[in-house]
């Protein structure tokens, strides 16, 4: 009889759970065990005598780095040995004396293969490194090891003496002939100096530290900018209406194309002005300053610092619009001109600095044409002159690189600046008309604008897709996301669930997400087939580059087809949501930047290094590029986590004063993140030094290249120097950065 009716089923359930746990544990253990097979763990190999000896030798050499060298005097004394006693009547002396005073005695002086011969050495230099070799009458000499110590090297005692035993080697057909026992002793003479490999290691280490410094410094501004987009707390509140978003994207695209084609010429012209090629260098220096001052005065006049008269609501007037447009034009032209002129000026200045730098260099060095790498004895004054010359020229080179880079990317700068200006003006002008649009027109406008934006977006994605097979998936994925959303929006609009999102019945949520996946899969398959992405994936071929003419413009058919897909899908989506619904722009940007950061971060710098070596050749530049790209992603993530960790109180307080997003970031966020940013930058530099020591293995320059060469040549003592240098520098940086981080956080 069961007193408690619940006990029965409860016990069964518990037993079942326990059984399942045991089964899971067994499966887990089997799974884990398989790992030991897969990774070929084998206890026999490390026990093989040959391997043990090899690793012992390698380790011993690695741990005996050739840091110093010292000139050596070498003495070789040979004593004769007759193979098979009595086979020849040559007189063989017991001991041989050398002019340096060293005496070598062997006993016996004749014998058979395998006999043991006593070797005594005396009156040599104390502690000299000595080896015994056996030199047969013909053929290669070979080292003989001392039977007592079982070592080839023999270190003489403090009186310069040694005695040991060797075995007579088995050498066929040498009976009746004289063999030689050679004692070769090298003893140091002259001062102890840094070895060649140490000097090379120092040079490469400097290179390595600079690689890390450069990669970190280039990554800092880019990563800081991205980190704001990858911070959830900053991005989540950013919303804007679909209409404004569409206007902004549309006009950004128009502005970008117009700016890149029309204004980049203007930018190049500004660069020539700055370089003094147009009107001489005097104008080159003055013109940018005048233009910037004039523009600042103009902007200041157009935009008073405070606007107290402004009504409570943002009722923009025609005058506001006009002001906004003049602002945009002025700012666009100003930025493009100023950037271009500055770039040109840098190039000019760089050329001057090269000349000035060279003129400072000591005369005799100029005549010799000596470079930095070569070591030449200089007195302190000459050394200072030479270093000044190198310094000035280095600044010149940096300015030249910056100036040339800006000139090269001028179309991009012009396009982006114009695009931003135009989209700002357009979305500002459109704000009020879009808001006051009647309901039906909102959806019609949404459809038109959405279709246009969709066509542009998908054309851009298709352009990317034409570059590599994997990127071909971008269009189907985008189509899937939009189509999925269309279906779930239709459902939500038709059914109108009773509660706002958090309390919506589970069934509604499940149906909506089910419809999302159905729509997504259908659109993915359709887009995939329409664009023939499968063929590219299987064959590795890219889409055909046939063109078709749209409104007199030649475009790739592939892009046109893809634009058509975007046109239809985004048109439908725009029509459904209308221009007045909100779009979570911030969350979208957050997800995009997080995905990009995570993807780039997951690619090891060594792999990036391989690609960059193909692009810019073997050397530290490839390493810098690889480390920079990886640092941007890694720092971007670390920085953004710091932004997410800030005290939200000040942000709330600044927002409550009526400050805008940008103002909130500048006044409430940035003051809080400066210490952790510095700390993480130090940390990253530390990591970059560590990484740049190995990036040389794939041709990225720095000490890794040296290390790899020495290892390949089996020069473990030289490799040991590089390894030691890495250990010293890395641990030094490790402690320094830890100390600084501790002080800051």
């Amino acid at each position, binding site marked *: 009889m069961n007193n408690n009716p619940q006990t029965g089923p409860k016990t069964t359930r518990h037993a079942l759970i326990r059984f399942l746990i045991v089964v899971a544990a067994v499966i887990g253990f089997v799974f884990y065990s398989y790992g030991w097979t897969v990774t070929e763990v084998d206890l026999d190999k490390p026990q093989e005598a040959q391997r043990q000896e090899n690793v012992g030798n390698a380790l011993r050499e690695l741990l005996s780095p050739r840091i110093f060298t010292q000139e050596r005097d070498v003495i070789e004394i040979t004593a004769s040995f007759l193979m098979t006693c009595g086979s020849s009547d040559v007189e063989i002396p017991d001991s041989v004396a050398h002019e340096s005073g060293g005496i070598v005695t062997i006993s016996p002086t004749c014998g058979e293969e395998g006999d043991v011969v006593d070797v005594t050495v005396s009156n040599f230099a104390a502690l000299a490194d000595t080896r015994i070799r056996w030199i047969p009458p013909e053929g290669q000499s070979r080292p003989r090891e001392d039977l007592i110590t079982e070592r080839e090297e023999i270190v003489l005692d403090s009186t310069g003496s040694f005695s040991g035993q060797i075995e007579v080697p088995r050498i066929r057909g040498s009976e009746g002939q004289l063999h030689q026992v050679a004692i070769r002793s090298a003893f140091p003479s002259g001062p102890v100096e840094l070895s060649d490999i140490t000097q090379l290691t120092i040079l490469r280490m400097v290179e390595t530290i600079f690689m890390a410094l450069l990669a970190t410094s280039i990554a800092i501004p880019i990563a800081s900018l991205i980190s704001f987009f990858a911070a959830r707390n900053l991005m989540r509140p950013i*919303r804007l209406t679909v209409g404004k978003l569409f206007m902004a994207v549309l006009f950004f695209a128009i502005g970008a194309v117009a700016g890149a084609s029309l204004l980049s010429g203007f930018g190049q012209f500004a660069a020539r002005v700055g370089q003094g090629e147009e009107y001489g260098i005097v104008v080159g220096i003055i013109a940018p300053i005048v233009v910037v001052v004039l523009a600042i005065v103009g*902007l200041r006049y157009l*935009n*008073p*610092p*405070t*606007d*107290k008269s*402004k*009504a*409570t*609501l*943002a009722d923009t007037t025609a005058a506001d619009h006009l002001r906004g447009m003049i602002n945009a034009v002025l700012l666009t032209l100003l930025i493009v001109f100023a950037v271009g002129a500055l770039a040109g000026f840098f190039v000019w200045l760089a050329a001057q600095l090269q000349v000035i730098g060279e003129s400072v260099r000591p005369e005799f060095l100029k005549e010799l044409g000596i470079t930095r790498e070569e070591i030449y004895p200089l007195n302190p004054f000459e050394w200072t002159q030479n270093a000044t010359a190198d310094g000035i020229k280095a600044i010149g080179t940096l300015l030249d690189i910056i100036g040339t880079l800006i000139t090269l990317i001028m179309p991009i700068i012009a396009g982006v600046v114009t695009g931003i200006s135009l989209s700002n003006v357009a979305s500002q002008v459109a*704000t009020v008309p879009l*808001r006051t649009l009647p309901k039906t027109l909102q959806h019609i406008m949404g459809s038109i604008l959405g279709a246009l934006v969709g066509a542009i977006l998908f054309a851009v994605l298709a352009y990317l897709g034409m570059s590599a097979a994997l990127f071909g998936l971008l269009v189907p994925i985008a189509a899937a996301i939009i189509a999925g959303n269309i279906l779930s929006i239709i459902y939500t609009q038709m059914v109108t669930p009773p509660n*706002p*999102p*958090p*309390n919506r019945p589970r069934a509604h949520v499940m149906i909506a997400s089910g419809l999302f996946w159905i729509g997504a899969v259908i659109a993915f398959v359709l887009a995939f087939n329409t664009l023939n992405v499968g063929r590219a994936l299987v064959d590795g071929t890219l889409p055909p580059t046939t063109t078709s003419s749209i409104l007199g413009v030649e475009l790739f058919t592939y892009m046109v087809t893809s634009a058509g897909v975007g046109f239809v899908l985004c048109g439908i989506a725009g029509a459904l949501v209308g221009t007045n619904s909100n779009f979570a722009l911030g969350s979208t940007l957050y997800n995009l930047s997080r995905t990009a950061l995570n993807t780039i971060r997951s690619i090891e710098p060594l792999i990036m290094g391989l690609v960059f070596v193909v692009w810019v050749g073997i050397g530290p530049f490839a390493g810098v590029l690889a480390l920079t790209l990886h640092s941007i992603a890694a720092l971007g993530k670390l920085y953004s986590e710091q932004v997410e960790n800030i005290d939200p*109180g*000040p942000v*709330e*307080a*600044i*927002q*409550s*004063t*009526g*400050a*805008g997003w*940008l*103002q909130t970031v*500048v*006044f*409430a966020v940035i*003051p*809080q993140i*400066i*210490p952790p940013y510095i700390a993480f930058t130090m940390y990253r530099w530390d990591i970059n030094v560590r990484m740049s020591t190995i990036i040389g293995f794939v041709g990225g320059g720095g000490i890794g290249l040296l290390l790899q060469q020495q290892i390949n040549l089996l020069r473990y003592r030289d490799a040991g120097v590089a390894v030691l240098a890495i250990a010293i520098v890395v641990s030094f940086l490790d402690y320094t950065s830890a100390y600084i981080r501790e002080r800051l956080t």
Partner: protein
Amino acid sequence: MLEIKNLTKIYDNGFKALDNVSFTIPDGQFVALIGLSGSGKSTLLRCINRLIEPTEGQIIWNGLDLTAISDEDMRLVRRRMGMIFQQFNLVKRSKVITNVLAGRLGYMSPMYSLLNYFPAEDKQDALANLQRVGIGEQAYKRASELSGGQQQRVAIARALMQNPELMLADEPVASLDPATSHGVMKYLEDLNKEDGLSIICSLHFLSLARAYSDRVIALKDGKLEFDGPPELIDNVRFKEIYGEDAVEVGIN
């Protein structure tokens, strides 16, 4: 005049912080907001300036429905609503004067604030407001170097820079000792009496509400539990608001 109509806030996790709250505050009133922790006081204050988006209901301020306007318009409305907080919410690494000047950001063109530029008259105003709350000589110290009471006064000066009509105070004295608490409350009273600001101030101590407010609004589990002059809160009402086991403690 501030009119709250049927205000409800349900958080994403389903918690109902405000449940159909309605009341009207005429200009120039000092309202104390009381209730247990978690009763919805902070949510109510943040719904008024829409730091938190209300789920349902209306907030009508000077004839404008704040729940219906765009984010950009709301930003402009917030300029006239000062807010101070329990944790003061100063940017601790910035100077006191910078913290105070931040109160002007809503009136500034964003381009200028990127360059950290403020007009000379704003700087004078900032110093004058710091004088007013009695810490003029601390203007160029870091905010973190100030004591709690001083920090809250900086926060009041910051709010004053907005030239507000309404002051929202979220437990302004809950992190301060009794003597300092009265100091801060006196400044708020002063703003109410001399400048005619409306003040909505959430408080833990009923004694403070009795000493400074014209009117008490009590919340319990997100619902309006009491609305009337502080004198009407007797022992029975007190137990209704704070629960049967509560005992009133004073702060003098």
